[in-house]
């Protein structure tokens, strides 16, 4: 293309355009000189809104403890104004809090679903409902140590296990096992309060009647929900009038809901997920209609698909660079690297402990490790460059890593 020689004129006379150019800097200086000299807010409105929605930390204290069953307690948590938290962050039913514990020189976290409703957060409290597990280090600690007035350090609300009207069917089928019913209590309450416009059928698997958490309360919620909340109890360990018996099977789901017009929300122990995966696969449901809550750390890593045979052996060593420190620690191959770091007294950042949130993202310098494929939610580039999420990484040899420091307020 032949290039045309141009002589642009914006004003009628060309020299006026050059004059306009010469005035650019003086104009700028005039604008600045004429502006207000007062400092402006360091925390403008949108940043303030962000801080309310996503606080880095919420300082809470226990205001009430209720026994739900023999080994399950509900803790009511309120803002601890003495430690600087004025109000609780709003959330979506189904979200969790990551709680931080300092026990015997270790700093560890645990995610717990919020069992109360968002309205209740506006009224000043969250509730979390915790089952004391036989091998539960933290749940045992909570049951023994927490009482009215205990200080609790929590994250802002986290997670993506919630109803979305643009994605989901407005018919929800919740499948819960044991303490996995907690997010559905939040949803049921929210429905009754008029904030969640869905129909919810909860399939709740328990061993025996006495193990059912929120038995009467959920009946009451269902009764006052105008038909929007329904609960189907499924008992594996006994037969009882008015209760389904056995496991939650595809046939059982079909008996109560139209599986082709339903969004499934599943929350329960690892064993339940494994069992349900087969049942649900048979229903040929699109991915978009199945949500699984994260189930936390993997138990019995050596039984996980893809784990090299006979790898769980002796302890390994991990050289850890963090801040300007370097330290070598021991790691038990049957436990995640995150647990090894916590045991050794580091304060590794963490939240979901299920591979998903990426808060514990660290750089592996060298060493062999195992990451279960189905929980590996790392970014593509992180896989390429050797970043790992220690919460789902299991040492298969000596390791060297760069661990980020935990955020501080």
């Amino acid at each position, binding site marked *: 293309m032949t290039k045309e020689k*141009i002589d642009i004129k914006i004003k009628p006379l060309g020299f006026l*355009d050059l004059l306009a150019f010469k005035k650019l800097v003086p104009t700028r200086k005039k604008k*600045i000189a004429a502006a207000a000299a007062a400092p402006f807010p360091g925390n403008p409105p949108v940043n303030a809104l962000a801080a309310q929605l996503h606080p880095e930390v919420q300082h809470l204290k226990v205001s009430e403890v209720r026994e739900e069953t023999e080994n399950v307690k509900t803790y009511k948590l309120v803002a601890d104004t003495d430690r600087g938290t004025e109000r609780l962050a709003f959330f979506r039913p189904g979200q969790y809090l990551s709680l931080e514990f300092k026990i015997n020189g270790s700093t560890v976290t645990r995610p717990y679903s919020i069992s109360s409703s968002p309205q209740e957060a506006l009224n000043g409290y969250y509730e979390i409902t915790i089952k004391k597990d036989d091998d539960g280090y933290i749940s045992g600690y909570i049951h023994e140590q927490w009482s009215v007035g205990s200080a609790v350090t929590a994250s802002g609300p986290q997670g993506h296990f919630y109803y979305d009207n643009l*994605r989901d069917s407005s018919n929800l089928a919740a499948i819960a096992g044991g303490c996995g019913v907690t997010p559905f209590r939040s949803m049921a309450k929210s429905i009754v309060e008029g904030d969640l416009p869905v129909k919810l059928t909860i399939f709740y698997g328990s061993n025996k009647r006495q193990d059912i958490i929120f038995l009467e309360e959920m009946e009451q919620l269902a009764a006052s929900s105008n038909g929007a909340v329904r609960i189907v109890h499924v008992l594996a360990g006994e037969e009882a009038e008015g209760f389904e018996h056995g496991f939650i099977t595809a046939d059982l789901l079909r008996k109560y809901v139209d599986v082709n017009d339903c969004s499934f929300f599943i929350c329960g122990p690892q064993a339940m997920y494994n069992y349900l995966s087969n049942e649900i696969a048979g229903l040929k449901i699109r991915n978009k209609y199945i949500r699984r809550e994260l189930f936390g750390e993997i138990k019995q890593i050596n039984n996980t698909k893809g784990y090299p045979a006979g790898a769980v052996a002796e302890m390994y060593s991990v050289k850890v660079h963090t801040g300007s420190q370097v330290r070598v620690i021991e790691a038990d191959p049957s436990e995640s690297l995150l647990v090894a770091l916590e045991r050794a007294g580091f304060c590794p950042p963490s939240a979901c402990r299920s591979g998903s949130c990426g808060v514990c993202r660290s750089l592996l310098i060298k060493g062999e490790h195992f990451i279960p494929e189905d929980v590996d939610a790392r970014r593509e*580039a992180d896989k390429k460059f050797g970043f790992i999420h220690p919460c789902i990484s299991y040492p298969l040899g000596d390791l060297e890593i760069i661990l980020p420091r935990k955020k*501080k307020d």
Partner: protein
Amino acid sequence: MSAGSFNESYDAVVIGAGNGGLIAAATLAEKGVKTILFEQHNLPGGFATSFTRGRFEFEPSLHEISDFGPPEDKGNVRILLEDRIGLDAEWMRVPEAYRLIIPDDVGGRIDAVMPFGEEAFLDKMEEYVPGSRPSVVKFIRLCEEVVDAFSYLGQSKGNPDKKVLTGTYANFLKTASYTLQDILDAVKMPYRAQKIITAYWCYLGLGVNLVNFSIFAAMFYRYITREAFIPRYRSHGYTAALEMKIRELGGEIQYNTRVDKILVEDGRVAGVETSQGDKIKTTRVIANASPHSVYSKLIYPQSAVPEIAYKTCNARKVGFSAFVVYLGLDKSASDLGIDEYSYFIYSIPDTNHIYDAFHRLERPVGQATVCLNNAIPDCSPEGTSILYLTTLFDGNCWSDVKPSEYFNLKNKIAEEMIDEFEKAVGVNVRDSIEEIEVATPATFAGYTGAYNGSVYGYEPVPWDSIVPRMMTMNDEKYIGGLEFAGGFAFRCHGYSSSLQSGETAALLTFRDLMEVKSQ
């Protein structure tokens, strides 16, 4: 504070691992400068990152990088990343410039698919707007001169020959103080051609009556002649590569570490303090943050901020924040009938009215929407696709939103945008949503601490566009040893500007360090 209480000392501290900060740290580390980069988040990139939901890894903010160029005709950004920094990242070519849809323009619907390449662009424009060619040629020639003039200014390192400027680059000088609309009128471009050629306006976030011509010209010409590129593994693909490169070059990075104070003594940087309790002695700081944030929160003591710094900030307008709907769809792009990569959909024709509407919390009247699979076919599993819809908001119109209304509000706006897209393009995406995430100005503010959630820098109106910023760079240095990088720096916003601003800030810092050493 006396120097003795610092626990470490660095030649330079970089605040923030966004595009500007990462490049600054890599450039300094490469030159052997003892450098530490502090990032408050646990990832590199700032907005140039990625996030995963289910089977999808989403691109949070980038639509396309300009001035990148194909390997055989490298643009400045490719030269910077590949040749000077030696980055290990993969890039994909964006297939077309854009598809512009204005459903209700005064002269009827505009629906134009514009190609890259000057000749192809001109031909297509003539097809859509017969008779437009002479004015469009003239416009493109002016844009070319602007780009050439910027190259010359870059080569002359701040000492251009006035004769060369007034001789070879006279049109550059004559247009520098005007708006885009002024130039469209001067070249007498037909109305519909103006609509089509200005489609990229929303990347600058200012209506055509307000945006400076020079900055638009540079962006437009580089897209049309050098095409557009995107990182294959989302922006995290290259920002993680930058992280690796900085470490490889001996630079340090500390995540989860917010710089709380830039300590100033006698008008010069003396050190920084962080949220982790680090006390660092340094004489050079590069801030990948806005002057608004730095002067209002970081400079310590606050009395070290001169009045003129506040005045400079108050005179300028902080650019828009964004609102983005990310969709992971369980159908392929072709099954959905989404054929293009980049869609600009303007529900009302006048860009100035759209600009005004972005200051109100109401149904969005403009969106830039990307279907990632049309540039990266395997960016999501087979039979799925990624679509993200972006509009802009002035942060202030979100100031009265209550947290209890927030989630419903964001899905309401998201739904309006999806409706608008479906209507304009004639497709259904709503029924295929497998994953959805919605980012609002509060999300952007929360994620990086950006001032009022701004994803753009200061608005590039004629008096605050790249040319006057360059000409006053030295006058407006209010704290000795402090440079700015990123979207708020002198090159204005956008990925390519932010990346290059990091290099400039590093080179200025390096030059100063060398001068001190030689004294």
